[in-house]
């Protein structure tokens, strides 16, 4: 397992061999992040982490915004009169969308809306963060990383699951609303996206995919794990 290839130390990715200036550093950062992300998705074990986290987070998100909840029982599908026309219609907040379909599935009911797409995007970001973190924990020497970054980045993302609900969340928490809190709710979700992307880049830029691929061993799928 390599620990010194390339001569980089953690936090110096922008000044690595490919990066001679600001634009070069940025290019290196993006290249490494993209490569690290691709590697995370290619390895069976890290892909499992990404998939599992994404699914769990998405379900949690839908539950948090109320789109997935206990129902009256029975099975069936109810469509809005104009599903496409109502797709962008917001409800309890600027990023909370009206349901265009209701799926009754026994004890559960699922309201389909763009909230699911928003939640899926967040869930993927959280999943990638945690998948990459998994890799860095498994092979810290190859990455030269402190591996807690991705985990911490997931916290605001988890909180953002409540952002769509706005004041309704305050009801659930028994809190009284104020202008500051309501403003915070409005920026929570976009802030979470920024933090998650930032976290992914921050971790990914420190990864040397070629080193990780070389060191990945049995967790990889043959040559697919090499960048």
């Amino acid at each position: 397992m390599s620990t010194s290839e390339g001569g980089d130390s953690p936090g110096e990715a922008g000044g690595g061999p490919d990066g001679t200036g600001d634009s070069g550093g940025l290019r290196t950062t993006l290249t490494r992040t993209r490569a690290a992300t691709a590697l995370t998705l290619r390895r069976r074990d890290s892909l499992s982490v990404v998939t599992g986290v994404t699914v769990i987070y998405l379900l949690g998100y839908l539950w948090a915004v109320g789109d997935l909840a206990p129902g009256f029982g029975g099975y069936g599908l109810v469509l809005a009169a104009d599903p496409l026309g109502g797709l962008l219609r917001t409800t309890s907040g600027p990023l909370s969308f009206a349901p265009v379909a209701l799926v009754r599935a026994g004890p559960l009911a699922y309201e389909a809306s763009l909230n699911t797409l928003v939640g899926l995007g967040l869930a993927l970001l959280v999943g990638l963060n945690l998948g990459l973190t998994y890799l860095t924990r498994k092979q810290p020497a190859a990455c030269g990383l402190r591996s807690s970054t991705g985990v911490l980045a997931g916290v605001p993302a988890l909180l953002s699951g409540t952002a769509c609900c706005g004041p309704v969340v305050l009801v659930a928490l028994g809190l009284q609303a104020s202008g500051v809190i309501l403003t915070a709710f409005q920026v929570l979700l976009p802030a979470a996206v920024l933090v998650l992307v930032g976290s992914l880049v921050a971790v990914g830029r420190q990864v040397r995919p070629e080193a990780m691929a070389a060191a990945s061993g049995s967790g990889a799928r043959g040559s697919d794990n090499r960048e």
Partner: protein
Amino acid sequence: MPRLTRRRTLASLASLGAAALAGCTTDANTGGGGGTVPAADDRLPLPIEPPALRDAAVSGGPGKDGIPSIDEPSFVAPAEVDFLADGDPVFGVARDGVTKAYPQSILAQHEIVNDELAGDPVSVTYCPLTGTVLGFDRGATSFGVSGRLVNDNLIMYDRATETWWPQILATAVPGPWNAEPETRSLREFRLVWTTWERWRGQHPETRVLSRDTGSPRNYARDPYGDYNPREGYYAGGAPLFPPLREDDRYGPKRVVMGARAPEGAVAFLKDGLREAGLLSGQLGDVPVLAVHDPRYDTGYVYRNPDELAYESVDEGVEGPAGITYAPDRLPLDRIHTFDAMWFAWAGFYPETDVYE
């Protein structure tokens, strides 16, 4: 002996009431689109000047019509209702031979149903945050949800003139879409907040608002809590937004039976009325009588200017001539009475008299 906790001074209400009486009309509010909003004969009191009410309005989160009113309601027979438990709250109305029940679980996600009762266009309105349900004549137009709240109470708007109408106040106030509406009050009618079991028992022929509302919603989920049993926001704790005025004499979510008129406002604690059967009080300077109706577990407030003696008996309420009346049929002038959370009532009517 009822305990009187009274604040007699109704200066602000009286001054506004006087102004209101001067402008009492029964004409219609004609606006864009040709719709009309029928106005009441008397204007109801406002806690503060109309422009101040606009300033006190806050966004509840949703935008205009973000909470969609039900504009084409459909109804089902009780035999088809499999989504209500006996103890679930419904809002019932019996008018001109038509009997309908509106489940709270559906109204919690729509707040307004633009409906007809015996051919009359009406709106059934419900505010989950203040626990109030009121019916209004809507004329040729309809009401929608503005997305704003004042004193945590739903601000409706009429689609003809886009005037703001806070639900409890039932009176036009300035808003961003109509900055200078004539200050007038809506024509109201009573909806009974009761349980499905009680309503069905009294009105087996009732029609029930269907879950087929045109919106694919999960009506098993109330985002605020539950009434059967009482949980979440409905069970206690602070209101979502600070009320216009704090009054800690009772818990904020304690339910009162409130009545207001140009003379002022009066409230009876619902559990106190339930226990006493009858309670006397004052609305402004007018003696009033509150009567509990065990059939629905609700209450009515009557003007009783001569302070006639009524007594609660097994079959109903016995009057001074020895005649027994149903609780909602006393030969007195009945004032529109409705359930409300204490904080909301006290916030809008700080000078209210309260009896328990």
